[in-house]
């Protein structure tokens, strides 16, 4: 069987479906991962990313459909570690074994010399702790060890499941550059993450899934232009809800889409800024703010996956824990009664640290102290 120069490094999923009993983890997923680029695999927690990764590696058997690497199911790939390297779980090592011995046992499986073990330990920067038990490793060191294991066989196809989890900023930058370099050498690099912000910087191509289904399969540039929507933020004077209603009606009448943010500001799409100003002037409403806003990739991603988030956080009511808020110490967050669900943003995925700034930007009140006496917008 002859394969094209590209074909033997390509990951291809066709109608991939995985059910665990009644729960469908992945449904009818079809995509291709091409060599020479970093392909980001995005989705909220529980979207089916890891399940898909495990199916690619033949660890889980698909209920329906198939996934191949270079045309062959992974379990039939000859000398798999020399073709495909993978980081699935940073903690998937025997804690009592040293980093070097862990890698050595993997190297021996595919006839990789021990010299190469020391080499990759140097590449990931673990040479100083090579003979320490991996039990004492931090999550970041574990990730580095996992990456070392993936690089061991100098494979042409690389899979990384959440490689930046637990890494420090220096480590994140290192992983980013490593991915890019591996791709520029013509390898296939498939990286999963739940952090859009990270993928925006690393990946060239994006495969986005939510609830196990394909949401997008396009280049990062296309993703931005398709999914980012510009809007204007309009704020009327505080304590004048009637003028806000008036302006809202006038804008809607002019064909704009108007949504109310939790703090009472309006999000207006579909009208240019000067026109909004004119309409405000025409309806005799003063404006405290009229600002252009460009949705970040993070927001575009969150909007896309909003309906597909499995684990959504609720406001911590602390029922029965506090009688009344302590003056000066009350956590402002818990006093915001409701975050409008139809709004523009979803809460950041649990565990998302890089997502926080974007979310805070989208919803300034979430972080700002709320005045409990102020009547909240019913929407």
């Amino acid at each position, binding site marked *: 069987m002859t394969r094209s120069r590209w074909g033997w490094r390509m990951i291809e999923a066709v109608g991939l479906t995985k059910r665990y009993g009644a729960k469908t983890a992945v449904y009818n997923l079809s995509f291709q991962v091409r060599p020479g680029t970093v392909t980001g695999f995005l989705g909220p927690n529980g979207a089916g990313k890891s399940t898909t990764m495990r199916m690619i590696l033949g660890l889980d058997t698909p209920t329906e459909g198939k996934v191949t690497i270079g045309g062959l199911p992974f379990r039939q790939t000859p000398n798999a570690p020399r073709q495909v390297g993978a980081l*699935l779980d940073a903690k998937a090592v*025997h804690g009592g074994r040293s980093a070097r011995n862990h890698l050595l*046992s993997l190297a021996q499986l595919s006839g990789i010399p021990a010299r190469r073990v020391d080499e990759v330990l140097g590449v990931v920067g673990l040479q100083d702790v090579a003979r320490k038990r991996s039990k004492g490793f931090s999550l970041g060191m574990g990730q580095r060890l996992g990456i070392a294991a993936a690089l061991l066989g100098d494979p042409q196809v690389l899979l990384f499941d959440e490689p930046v989890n637990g890494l420090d900023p220096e480590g994140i930058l290192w992983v980013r550059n490593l991915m890019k370099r591996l791709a520029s050498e013509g390898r296939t690099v498939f990286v999963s993450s739940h952090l859009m912000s990270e993928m925006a910087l690393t990946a060239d191509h994006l495969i986005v899934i939510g609830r196990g289904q394909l949401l997008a399969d396009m280049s990062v540039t296309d993703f931005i232009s398709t999914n980012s929507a510009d809007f204007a933020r309009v704020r009327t004077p505080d304590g004048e809800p009637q003028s806000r209603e008036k302006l809202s009606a006038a804008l809607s009448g002019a064909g704009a889409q108007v949504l109310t943010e939790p703090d009472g500001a309006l999000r207006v799409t579909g009208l240019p800024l000067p026109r909004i100003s004119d309409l405000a002037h025409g309806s005799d409403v003063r404006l405290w703010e009229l600002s252009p806003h460009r949705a970040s990739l993070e927001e575009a991603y969150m909007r896309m996956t909003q309906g597909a988030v499995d684990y959504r956080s609720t406001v911590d009511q602390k029922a029965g824990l506090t009688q009344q808020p302590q003056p000066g110490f009350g956590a402002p967050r818990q006093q915001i009664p409701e975050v409008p669900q139809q709004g523009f943003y979803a809460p950041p995925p649990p565990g998302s640290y890089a997502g926080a700034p974007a979310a805070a930007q989208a919803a300034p009140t979430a972080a700002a102290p709320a005045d409990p006496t102020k009547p909240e917008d019913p929407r």
Partner: protein
Amino acid sequence: MASLPAVLQSEWTKIRTVSSTIWTLAAAFLVTVAVSAALCALFRSTFDDLSPAQRLTFDPTLASFSGMTLGQLAMVVFGVLVVGTEYSSGMIRTSLAAVPQRGTFLFGKLAVATVLALAVGMATSFAAFFLGQALLGEHRTTIGAENVLRAVVGGGLYMGLIALFSMAVATMLRSSMLSLGILMPFFFLVSQILAAVPKAKTVARYFPDQAGARIMQVVPDALGGTKVPYGPWEGLGIMLIWVLVALAGGYAVLKRRDA
């Protein structure tokens, strides 16, 4: 394809680089030898208190293996941990991603661990025998006596098979805790107790440990024990059937289930 020699080499690296290997195997050796020695010394000093029937059927070889009931538990732990830690640590995914041929992986792994367990089992068996005989004084037997060498070699085989059986069970259950939770009470309590209960012992004598232990007897029905309807090698054969069934089960589970 990861070849069998490569898997064997890799598994040898894995098994020699965790401290649980040394601890469990050393415990199997020391517990068996020490408890056997203590009981042999006890037999010698209280020999005259035994009933005439027991004195007539006293089996010095079996006496020197009396610590194995306890020592085999360390072998069980060794066998369970060899397989179970792959699952508890998640290493199994790394291993299977590197060796997609699951049969090669499993049997390579079990082969290495079993050879090691057999080697330690043999050393244990011989050490327990010679130390036990030295302590039995005038009641001793010698390695050259009839069937004694068979019993001593059999003791080593028994230890190896117990370890292999534990590995196979752990492969089926995919968990160290669950496997230990079943195997330890079974070998230490259930099997021992049932073997002493009148009606239940007709069934219990076909349990792997009860059947396999028959090979260590030189005097049939030693120490007033009841007759069993199989000989020493048949007994070991019964144990071997248990092991093979467990292995088939473990292989089927590994082959079919998601890692």
